[in-house]
């Protein structure tokens, strides 16, 4: 297939050559049986997993990578079927083993971790007990006490804080990252020879994913396990893998060492994949500049607290402080970005901004009027000029109404125009966002995510809003579709002078479109700066940690090792005194534990909330 493939496969250049491979897949083909007949999912897959190595498999959604990783544990269910090939492990072909023998290998010698940690365990049994149950099943020779100790030790080894207490907690009490660590414990507790990790960082935030990657790398050495690491993110696979396989629509198109693949990709598809990884710093595009228009949206010291019942005390409530004193302004014609990881309060903020909930403290002013005081007709008037686009293109549109009717709904609500005028307007806006007129009378079932999001956009645009809040609007779309819609937004901005607020966790996207950016952590804005300052000379350690953890394939100004965060964000119920970021901050010092830093506003209008002087953070390792 390629030169590097030949060299990789030849014994002379392979340091692991002396030892037999852990797993060898030969000529594996998988089909899916549908009503329309068989369709190929995997075709003639050959791969070898060397001992003590990490084999990365990269492929986009639909490339067959999950099917491949499941086939490697002989765990495919109808309508999927293996048509030919072998999966050799320890001198045996797993595909021809009796079901009972195969079941004996799964979870013992070959472990598998999937992409969905939060639903991977029985929700009604404590996590530790379930891991113990598995360990007792695979290692019945251990005494109950020894097994329990081993589980707790392994929980400790993956840096789950207070493992003894965590042992008795339930899956829903674990965050996604913690749960994924627990699943790693579950996989490694039986000392498997091979671990198949299928897209395990996919649901996690970048800083947590970075921790998991480092953890897996360390554990692989300690436990002497080979890992097959499957992912759709080139940036992530390249952080951990030794060798890499590129999967394109069921075919292996290239295999190389990571370094080789990134430096000299050979197959056209690989090159395309690499080109698609968004560039944050190496991009040639100049980021948008702040606008000097009038202030459209003025958010002043807004706060929101929810109450939850406390199970540990009688008639007690606990306060979840979701948003704490957030302030920013957005000027007309500007693109403003709000970024942060899960639980940072950005979705609460979005609900407050869209007037679905009222803030407990502070004010949100739209064109000088406090939106909390608006009622009835005034509120309806506000809704016309101030729209919000939601994240999920599937649930945002009702399944039972035609597309034309869905887009017409806001006009009907606001009583704008006769039946004919409305139809006319709807068709105009459909053309504007790129929806075929033929869709007017169709139900949305069967539309792609991108098309659905266009319906969504059309529905908001038909009211001719002045301000559009985009709450993770593009995050479920692939890169190509995302780029198309960003272009559409830009065109609309030029044509109609719309102001956008992007709420997102996608740092590359925000880098491309936003002029000014706010970074949120635990319900608070920790840094607010213009685009270039934010990405090149950030003043807050959290911003730098976020940027250092972004999986990219370019050189970064912030080195991952310098800014790697410990642990997870604290529970918004128990916000630590002092600086709320100090529990994870690599630069925290004694003052941080007592004083809560207020926002310091610098000469250039940017601001950050950190006790460290502006230039006391390590100098960026890459100059602009």
């Amino acid at each position, binding site marked *: 297939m390629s030169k590097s493939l030949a060299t990789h496969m030849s014994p002379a250049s392979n340091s692991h050559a002396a030892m037999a491979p852990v797993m060898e897949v030969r000529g594996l083909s998988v089909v899916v049986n549908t009503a329309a007949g068989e369709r190929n999912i995997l075709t003639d897959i050959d791969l070898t997993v060397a001992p003590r190595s990490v084999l990365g498999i990269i492929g*986009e*959604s*639909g*490339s067959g990578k999950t099917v491949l990783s499941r086939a490697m544990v002989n765990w495919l269910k109808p309508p999927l079927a293996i048509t030919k090939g072998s999966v050799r492990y320890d001198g045996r072909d797993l595909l021809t083993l009796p079901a009972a023998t195969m079941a004996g290998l799964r979870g013992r010698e070959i472990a598998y971790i999937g992409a969905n940690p939060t639903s991977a365990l029985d929700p009604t049994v404590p996590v530790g007990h379930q891991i113990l149950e598995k360990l007792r099943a695979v290692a019945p020779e251990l005494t109950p006490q020894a097994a329990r100790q081993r589980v707790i030790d392994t929980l400790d080894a993956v840096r789950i804080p207070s493992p003894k207490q965590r042992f008795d907690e339930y899956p829903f009490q674990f965050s996604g990252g913690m749960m994924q660590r627990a699943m790693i414990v579950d996989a490694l507790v039986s000392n498997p020879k091979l671990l198949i990790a299928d897209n395990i960082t996919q649901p996690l935030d970048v800083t947590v994913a970075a921790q998991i990657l480092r953890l897996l790398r360390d554990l692989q050495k300690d436990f002497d396990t080979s890992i097959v690491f499957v992912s759709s993110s080139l940036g992530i696979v390249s952080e951990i893998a030794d060798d890499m396989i590129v999967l*394109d*629509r069921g075919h292996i198109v290239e295999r190389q060492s990571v370094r080789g693949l990134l430096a000299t990709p050979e197959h056209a*598809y690989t090159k*395309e*994949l690499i080109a*698609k990884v968004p560039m944050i710093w190496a991009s040639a595009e100049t980021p948008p500049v702040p606008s000097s228009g009038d202030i459209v949206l003025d958010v002043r010291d807004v706060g929101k607290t929810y109450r939850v019942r406390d199970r540990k005390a009688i008639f007690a409530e606990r306060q979840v402080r979701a948003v704490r004193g957030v302030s920013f302004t957005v000027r007309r014609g500007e693109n403003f970005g709000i970024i942060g990881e899960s639980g940072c309060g950005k979705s609460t903020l979005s609900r407050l901004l*869209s*007037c*679905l909930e009222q803030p407990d403290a502070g004010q949100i002013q739209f064109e000088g009027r406090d939106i909390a005081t608006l009622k009835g007709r005034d*509120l*309806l008037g506000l*809704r*016309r000029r101030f*729209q*919000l686009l*939601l*994240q*999920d293109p599937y*649930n*945002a*549109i*009702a*399944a*039972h*109404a035609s597309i034309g009717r869905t887009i017409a*709904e*806001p006009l009907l*609500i*606001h009583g704008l125009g006769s039946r004919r005028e409305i139809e006319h307007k709807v068709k105009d806006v459909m053309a504007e966002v*790129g*929806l*075929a007129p*033929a*869709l007017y009378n*169709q*139900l949305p*079932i*069967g*539309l*792609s*995510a*991108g*098309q659905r999001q266009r319906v*969504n956009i059309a*529905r*908001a645009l038909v*009211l001719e809003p002045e301000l559009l809040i985009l709450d993770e609007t593009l995050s479920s779309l*692939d890169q*190509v*579709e995302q780029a198309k819609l960003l272009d559409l937004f830009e065109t609309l901005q030029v044509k109609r002078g719309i102001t956008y607020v992007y709420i997102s966790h996608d740092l590359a996207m925000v880098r491309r479109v936003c002029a000014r950016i706010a970074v949120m952590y635990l319900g608070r804005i920790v840094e607010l700066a213009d685009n270039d300052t934010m990405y090149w000379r950030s003043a807050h350690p959290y911003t730098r940690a976020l940027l250092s953890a972004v999986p990219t394939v370019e050189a970064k100004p912030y080195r991952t090792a310098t800014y790697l965060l410990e642990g997870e964000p604290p529970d918004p119920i128990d916000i630590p005194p002092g600086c709320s970021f100090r529990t994870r901050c690599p630069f925290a010092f004694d003052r941080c534990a007592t004083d809560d830093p207020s926002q310091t506003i610098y000469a250039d209008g940017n601001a950050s909330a950190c006790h460290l002087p502006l230039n006391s953070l390590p100098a960026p390792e890459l100059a602009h």
Partner: protein
Amino acid sequence: MTSSTATAAGTTAAPKTKYRGVTARILRRAWGQTEMKVAASIFLALTLLTLFGPYIIDASATKMSVANKFLPPIFMEGGKLPHFLGTDQLGRDLLLRSLIGLRNAFAIGVVSVVGMFILGCAIGIYSGYRGGLTDVILMRLTDVQMSIPVVILAITVLGMSRPSPLTIIAVLILASWPVYARVARGVTLAERQKEYVRAAKILGASDLRIMVRHIAPSILPPIAFVAVLDVARMMIFEAIFGFIGIGIQPPTPTFGTIIASGTQYLLNAWWITIVPGVLLALALGSLNLMGGVLERARNHILQGGE
């Protein structure tokens, strides 16, 4: 499946396949099952018999005839035409009495289920959508209602007033609406979290509009499928009321009174009780089987099946 070359369907092409709504898919799936076809055929046959039987069979359901009393069904020795299923202690034709009973029971079943469906779902959607104190009060109200057993309520109300089809329907609705309210509320709670509701709010839709135009159309059809089962349940209640003597009053025949009157003659003329019951069970069986298949088809489709 997205891949590098196949980008989203493009901006001009309409989807190729014809997609159906959830309701259509459930019905199609259900109709594909043999049980559904069998049950529907039985139901259709009984409907036709009920509609046209009284005109074809040359006998009377109410006129007494001493000469013809205790006639067994025609498949037994001594049976004679036109009394296919024999006669009762007063010589009335059992088939005709059963058919009229069936018609009345079915009418009461359908009307009361429609009534409890509308009342229950309206309250359920309102309660689930409003949440908060409204929800607590309305749900406690369903608790109150549900904690009075149907039969106690019915015998108290019907036993002490004059039972008529309307009061029977009223009692059935009153006793069973909380079940629908509970179900509709549960689905609404989940539905309210969905983004389309939030989207409608942001667009400025009023709460009433969201409940009526957005939530109701998406949650009601699946609940309605299960309501078929309740028609059968209500028909059983109608029979029980008749049996206890608090149902539709004689001389109008109902299953309850037919069965009750036959119990005295069980040893000599068992068919008076047993045979009409078979007819009723057949009718209920076809309804329940259809309901069961629809329920399973619904679960299958809602869980992502085709």
